[in-house]
C-alpha cells in the first residue's frame, strides 16, 4: 500500500443560500502515485470536493487530513496545504491574471516565500514541463485555449505540490492537447505525486486513470479500478457509459419549422 497523502473524511458542505447540500458525507483517499478520475453528474459535488482539498472551502462537518493530520485552517496551515495540494481550475482565464506568463507562473512560488531567484528557477522548470518556455514573455490574452490551460497548469506546478486536483481540465481540448495535458499529469505522478482529475470523459477515465471515484448527490459512492467499473453493467450505467444506446430519435413534440 502506498503512502496516504490527502484524505477527505465524511465532508458535509452547503453553500450559503442553497436549498440542498453540495456534499453529504463525501469521503475519498488519495495516495502517492495514484491517478484518480472523479466522475459524476453535474451538481454531484465534484468541484466542491476539490475546493476542500486546497482549503478554499472549510467543511461544515467532517475532516480533511494531510498524511493523517487534520488541517487546522490557520493562515500558516493553509499556506503549507496549498504548497502540497495544487488546484487547477476548469477555466484558465480565471486563474491567469498577470501581465505576462513569467509573472503569472512566479506568483505562487513568491506567495510561498521563495526568493526571486528560486521563483525564476521554478518557473523555468514548470514551463519546460508544460512545454511553454517559448511563451513566458507573452500576455495571457494572446494565447490559445490549450496554451492557457498549460500555463495555468504550470502556475500550479511551479508551487511544487504533491497532489494535483484538476477540475475538468481536459474538457473542450482537441485530442493532441488533451494527450499533452494528460502526459504532464503522468509525469507528475511518475515523480511521486498524485492526481485527482474530475472529468465527464469516459475514455479518459477508462484509459488514463488507475481508479474511478463516482460521486452521486454529494457522496463518493464507489471507488474501483476502471476495469471493474466498466465490467459491471450496473456501475457502467451509473457513470453514463451506456447512454448513447438510449438516444431517442422519435420526437415527442413536433415543432413547426421555418422554411
Amino acid at each position, binding site marked *: 500500500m502506498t503512502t496516504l497523502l490527502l484524505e477527505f473524511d465524511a465532508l458535509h458542505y452547503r453553500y450559503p443560500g442553497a436549498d440542498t447540500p453540495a456534499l453529504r458525507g463525501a469521503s475519498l483517499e488519495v495516495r502517492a502515485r495514484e491517478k484518480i478520475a472523479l466522475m459524476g453528474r453535474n451538481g454531484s459535488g465534484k468541484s466542491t470536493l476539490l475546493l476542500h482539498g486546497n482549503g478554499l472551502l472549510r467543511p461544515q462537518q467532517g475532516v480533511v487530513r494531510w498524511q493523517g493530520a487534520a488541517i487546522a485552517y490557520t493562515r500558516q496551515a493553509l499556506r503549507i496545504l496549498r504548497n502540497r495540494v495544487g488546484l487547477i481550475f476548469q477555466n484558465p482565464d*480565471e486563474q491567469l*491574471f498577470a*501581465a505576462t506568463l513569467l*509573472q503569472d507562473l512566479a506568483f505562487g512560488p513568491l*506567495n*510561498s516565500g521563495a526568493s526571486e531567484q528560486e521563483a525564476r528557477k521554478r518557473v523555468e522548470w514548470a514551463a519546460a514541463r508544460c512545454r511553454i518556455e517559448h511563451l513566458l514573455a507573452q500576455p495571457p490574452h494572446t494565447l490559445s485555449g490549450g496554451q492557457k490551460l498549460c500555463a495555468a497548469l504550470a*502556475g500550479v506546478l511551479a*508551487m511544487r505540490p504533491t497532489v494535483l486536483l484538476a477540475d475538468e481540465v481536459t474538457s473542450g481540448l482537441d485530442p493532441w492537447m488533451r494527450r499533452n495535458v494528460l502526459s504532464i499529469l503522468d509525469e507528475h505522478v511518475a515523480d511521486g505525486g498524485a492526481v485527482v482529475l474530475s472529468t465527464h470523459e469516459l475514455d479518459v477515465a477508462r484509459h488514463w486513470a488507475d481508479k474511478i471515484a463516482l460521486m452521486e448527490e454529494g457522496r463518493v459512492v464507489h471507488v474501483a479500478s476502471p476495469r471493474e467499473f466498466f465490467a459491471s453493467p450496473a456501475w457502467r450505467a451509473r457513470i453514463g457509459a451506456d447512454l448513447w444506446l438510449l438516444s431517442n430519435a422519435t420526437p415527442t413534440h413536433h415543432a413547426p419549422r421555418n422554411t
Partner: protein
Amino acid sequence: MHRLDAYAHASRLRHVHPLNKFAFALTVIALCLVLDRPAVSAAALLWMAGLSLLWGGATPGFVLRLLAAEGLFLALSVVAVAVQIGPVGQGGGWSATVTPASLAQAGALLLRAFACASAMNFLALTTPILELAAAQRFRAPAALLDVTLVMYRYVFLLLETLMRMQRAQESRNGYASWSATMRSAASLGSQLFAASWRSGQRMEMALQARGYEGGALPMLAPTYTLSWAWLAVACLVLATLLGLAHL
C-alpha cells in the same frame, strides 16, 4: 488595443528599459515643442516612425493606420488656426479668411503635433503599458500598481466576454431592428456586469488557491539589458534634431 498590445510585447526593443524609452520619447517631444522648427518636426516624425517600423517590428500598414487616425483628429483641430473668422465692418457680418501665413502656421502646428504623436506611438509600440507602470514600482503605491495590473488583464477578459455575448445575441437576431438593438444592448450591459462580478469572484478564489493571502501581489522584477546600439541610435536621433534647429 489588442494589436497595439501584441506589437508592444513582440517588439525587438522590449528588452530596453521602459524608462529609457520613456525618457527618449519625452525628449523628442520636448525638442519638437521647444525648437519649434518644421524641419525638426519632420525629422522627428520620420525617425520615430522609422524606429517603430524597422527596429520595433511593427508593420507599415498598422503604423500608417495609427498615424491616419491621429492625423484626422489633428487636422480637424488645426482648421481653427488655418481659417480666421472675424467680424466685417460695422454691419454685424462675419467672414472666414485663409491667408498664406495662417496656412503655414497651421501646417507647422500639424507637423509638430504629428511628430509628438509619432513619438508616443513609438513608445506604445515598443513598451507594454504595464512594464512602464511596473518600472515606477518604487515611486507609486503598490496597491495602485496592483489594481492597474489586474484591471489591465480584466479589460481583455471583459472584451472577450462582451464579444461572446454580442455574437450570441446577434446569432438570434438580437440586433435585427432598432428595438431589438436597444433590448440587446441593455441586457448586454446588465449581464456583462453580472458576468464580470462572478468572474472576479472566481479569479479571487484562484489567487487564494496559489497562496495569496491579501496585500500587495508579489511580482518578479522584470530584467532589462543595456543596449549600446540603442543608446547610439537614441543619441543620433537627438543630435539630428538639435542639428536641424538652425534650419
